[in-house]
């Protein structure tokens, strides 16, 4: 194959007429990895935000012993703060995620590593929230048990075994759900971007 000859033909090749008269303001992105990620992030952002008001209504919906009130509100405050930090980071990343005029490697690198970091951050904060929720549920549960019954239960080994097993099952299910959520929503695009980066860097 003569590439010099091909280059001449390349320059002379006939062009198909392109319709550029369509309304630019109505055009939308469809199949760009970055755009797909942005769309998913936007949906997930609002989904996560809805969990905050739901959490705040909990003490009003379910009876909580008065003496446990301050500690529960403190945990709810911790959960809200924990949710807000990654949300702010994701929002800022979303706003800055377009660097199309950079070189390909710089553009992909920037997006890939920030995206990966966002996923890791999301995961870490989910684990923290998970722990806080366990604390929250534990306090609510123990607060609603009759003190005499609780004193009796505390003497039983089966009670502790049940609590530990329940905790293990609960944490196991939650961890699976978090990982599944991330894999379904974000991992596919991360993998696609990694493949292109590897091709560029190899």
């Amino acid at each position, binding site marked *: 194959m003569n590439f010099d000859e091909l280059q001449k*033909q390349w320059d002379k090749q006939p062009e198909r007429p392109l319709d550029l008269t369509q309304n630019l303001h109505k055009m939308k992105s469809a199949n760009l990895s970055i755009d797909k990620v942005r769309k998913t992030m936007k949906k997930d952002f609002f989904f996560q935000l809805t969990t905050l008001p739901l959490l705040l209504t909990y003490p009003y919906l379910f009876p909580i012993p008065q003496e446990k009130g301050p500690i529960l509100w403190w945990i709810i405050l911790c959960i809200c703060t924990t949710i807000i930090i990654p949300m702010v980071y994701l929002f800022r990343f979303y706003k800055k995620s377009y660097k199309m005029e*950079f070189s390909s490697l710089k553009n992909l690198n920037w997006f890939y590593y920030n995206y990966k970091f966002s996923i890791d951050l999301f995961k870490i904060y989910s684990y923290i929230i998970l722990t806080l929720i366990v604390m929250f549920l534990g306090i609510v549960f123990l607060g609603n048990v009759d003190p005499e019954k609780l004193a009796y239960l505390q003497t039983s080994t089966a009670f502790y075994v049940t609590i530990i097993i329940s905790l293990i099952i609960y944490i196991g299910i939650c961890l699976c759900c978090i990982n599944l959520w991330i894999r379904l929503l974000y991992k596919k695009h991360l993998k696609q971007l990694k493949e292109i980066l590897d091709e560029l860097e190899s």
Partner: protein
Amino acid sequence: MKATEKEFLDLMDKHKGILYKISRMYFEKTEDQEDLIQEMTFQLWRSYQNFKGNSLFSTWMYRVCLNTALTYFKKEDKKQDKFELHENYDKEDDDQSHYKEEQLKYFYEAVQELNKVEKALIFLFLEGMSHREISENLGISEVNARVKLNRTKDKLQTIIKKNGYEF
């Protein structure tokens, strides 16, 4: 129509060959090519607000278009008959009836077997860019661009031979 929009469309019309060539490099089916052209136009329009004119419009356009093509994934639910599209190309060839266009057709067929980065390398090379310009566009070193380009050319030669063509 606003002045910016008109200015943008005029520039696009002047450089539309870039859109056409990239889309044909990256996809075989006409429908996919058109989708990619629309995506590139959209990304160019969106990034146009940030175009300060520090470089040539065409230089900036190469970057945005290639970055779009690299991260673009075609729709998965398309069920189009491949044969029908080859028919379209045949019609085009009948009209042109030109040996050189035949060579380009074989070239475009072979290019489909390359990966996204290799397509970008060959595209920039055929656009007449030097190794330094290719390296700047892709963000890799000049040596790496040269090595990758030579490897891609060899791969392309092998594919064309494997497909039973020689030119």
